[in-house]
């Protein structure tokens, strides 16, 4: 067993094939049931391919025309699929895809204004954001809004200040952050809050970074995987949420990288490619990206370097305009 573990590697070619073939699975019922995730899926797949050094294996023109076909003519945001309503979750993915393809210029001034109006219009007086006009509030949406505006270079003080105060209210006694003030700490929400603070260059808002770092490091369980909350099962996606958070806090070394690598590699489908939440479960593109992104953050497997804040290749994010804007 020990010997076998030693030889485990990342099945790069299989993962590339798995991702490229995702769009040919239309004979399966699940393909149709997941249309509402298509834009996110495209972002997950494209980013994973990029990290694997294979960003050209999707047809750039096809991808761009799909993204543009998802613009919501009513609210100005992007939906997950043509005729699906614009929502912050799919809007961030659309912007990330275009930025990754170095194609934000396919959006004209009017498109950009629509987008910015859509995003800013979803902020509430207490600084939180709703995902769309139907009112779901969650720190996930602060991140999607702020990250989107940041990629577009359209942050303003008026948006930033209240966001900071809302995030502050979401921190808990264990150092972590929840989806709203009062909600239990959860590793994915920790990432959304830290990511936002990092974009806004305001990590000083966090009360007790050592405590938060401790809570994050306690997410690693005996088999090397990371969980999202105390006493829960490990899941490959937390390789991203926890690891990127530790990286933002400059405490990446506070967990065992070798063991986490083993856990991620054991969750691969060695036959058909793709990575699952845990060993021997069904793979999907979400866990495939977050497994690969975790490996990239730990600098394993010669992957393209990923930015822990934007979850995009550093080659891309280094071009973004940094807040606070000087000119």
């Amino acid at each position, binding site marked *: 067993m020990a010997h076998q573990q030693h030889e485990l590697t990342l099945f790069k070619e299989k993962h590339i094939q798995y991702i490229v073939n995702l769009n040919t699975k239309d004979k399966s019922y699940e393909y149709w049931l*997941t249309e509402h995730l298509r834009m996110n899926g495209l972002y997950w797949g494209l980013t994973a391919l990029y990290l694997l050094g294979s960003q050209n294996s999707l047809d750039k023109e096809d991808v761009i025309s799909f993204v543009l076909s998802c613009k919501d003519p009513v609210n100005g945001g992007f939906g997950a699929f043509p005729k699906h309503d614009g929502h912050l979750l799919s809007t961030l993915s659309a912007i990330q895809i275009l930025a990754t393809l170095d194609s934000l210029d396919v959006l004209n001034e009017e498109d950009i204004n629509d987008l910015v109006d859509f995003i800013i219009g979803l902020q509430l007086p207490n600084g939180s954001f709703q995902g769309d006009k139907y009112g779901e509030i969650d720190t996930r949406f602060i991140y999607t809004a702020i990250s989107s505006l940041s990629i577009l270079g359209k942050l303003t003080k008026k948006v930033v200040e209240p966001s900071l105060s809302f995030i502050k209210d979401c921190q808990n006694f264990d150092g972590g952050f929840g989806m709203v003030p009062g909600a*239990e700490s*959860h590793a994915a929400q920790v990432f959304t809050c830290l990511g936002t603070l990092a974009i806004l260059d305001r990590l000083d808002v966090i009360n007790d970074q050592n405590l938060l770092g401790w809570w994050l490091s306690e997410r690693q369980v005996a088999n090397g995987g990371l969980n999202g909350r*105390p006493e829960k099962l490990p899941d490959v996606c937390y390789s991203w949420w926890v690891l990127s958070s530790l990286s933002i806090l400059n*405490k990446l070394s506070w967990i065992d990288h070798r063991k986490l690598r083993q856990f991620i590699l054991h969750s691969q489908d060695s036959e058909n490619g793709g990575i699952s*939440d845990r060993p*021997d479960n069904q793979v999907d593109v979400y866990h495939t990206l977050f497994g690969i992104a975790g490996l990239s953050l730990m600098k394993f497997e010669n992957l393209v370097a990923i930015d822990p804040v934007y979850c995009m290749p550093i080659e891309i994010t280094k071009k973004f305009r940094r807040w606070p804007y000087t000119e």
Partner: protein
Amino acid sequence: MHGIKRERLSEEARRNKKLRDRARIRNYKTLNAMVLVRRDKRDYSEDAFRLSTKLLDLNPEYYTIWNYRREIFLNGLFQDPGDAAKGETAVSNDMIPAILERELKFLIVLLKRFPKCYWIWNHRMWCLENNPKPKLNNELAIVNKILSLDSRNFHGWHYRRYIIGLIESSNGSKSSTNSGINASGTELSLSEFNYTTELINLNFSNFSALHNRSKLIIKIFKKTNLDNQYKEAVLKTNPEFENKLEFLTKELDYFKNAIYTDPDDQSVWLYLRWLLCSNDLLNLSMDDNDNNNDNNNSNNNNNKLKIIKLLLLQIKDINELNDLEKSDDINSLDNKWCLKIIIEIQMTLFDKFIDLLKTNDTNNSDYLTSLITNFNQNLTTLIQIDPLRSNRYLDLQRIYNKRFETL
């Protein structure tokens, strides 16, 4: 796909799935097209509503259809048909509660199948917000049920706090007492606190309940500080809220049993760490005897000494537990969590009380030296027994020893 086993289908099984899927896809695509066509035509009829029910029953993650459904409510089902076909005017706002009650029933059926679907929970909240007469106590009963099935479901907890908030604000708008805090609202914080006690009695490894408990404790103390009448009401059922130091002592007693039962469960330890090391409770404790205006400073020092004593006693108790665990362990290893919490308490002593610890009181100054030695020993042991996090312990050793040099 969270938590679904990977399966290798045989050739035959794959063929069968393909065949089955072909029919399901045809059905789904037809239904989807019918709904989207109606939406394009701004069809807000009963028929469109029924079709959206069918589609959401197949795919509750399809957020756009939830949006359409809300449009149908707002522009169709909630509208007074007025001089429409029947020529009657009976249907008006009075119908909204009944329509939304029916919707809540549909959502319960879906939640049983998809308890973690954000969109369903969100739609449920929308239904309450658009109902002039929401039955909030029913919702509380439902969320009790859901949390009894999965006591860590964070959607359930989120919804619970949301409902409590709605009940509090509706109580607040109905009755306004001159103290600014209404009696039924305050009872609610307390009954929620007692609910967490119930859940913890069933299973102390319920971090969600412990988390909520921490929030409620802060809330209740904030209110008892402001409002004597409220405080008296609280003390009738929960005398532990008399003052913070007393509360802390009682709470530590209550959880001692838990750590002895399962010293490897991190939920309770993290909670104990909050009780003993956070500013939330320690600051509260220090403010406690402030009603005595004379000698505020010495009072404050007295309180600090009380807290130091309490913390040192906790270290002693946890060390005893660790010794027990060590003697039970085949390799005579220390218990990780005992040591993890001891170093937290030690760091709290260093961070907050270092001045008092190094005063000329010889007892304390001796103690400080041995405390530092013991702290370093604990970190060295943790590096061995908790290797996943060894770099954290090394960092702490570096940070604190640098600080100790300047003592």
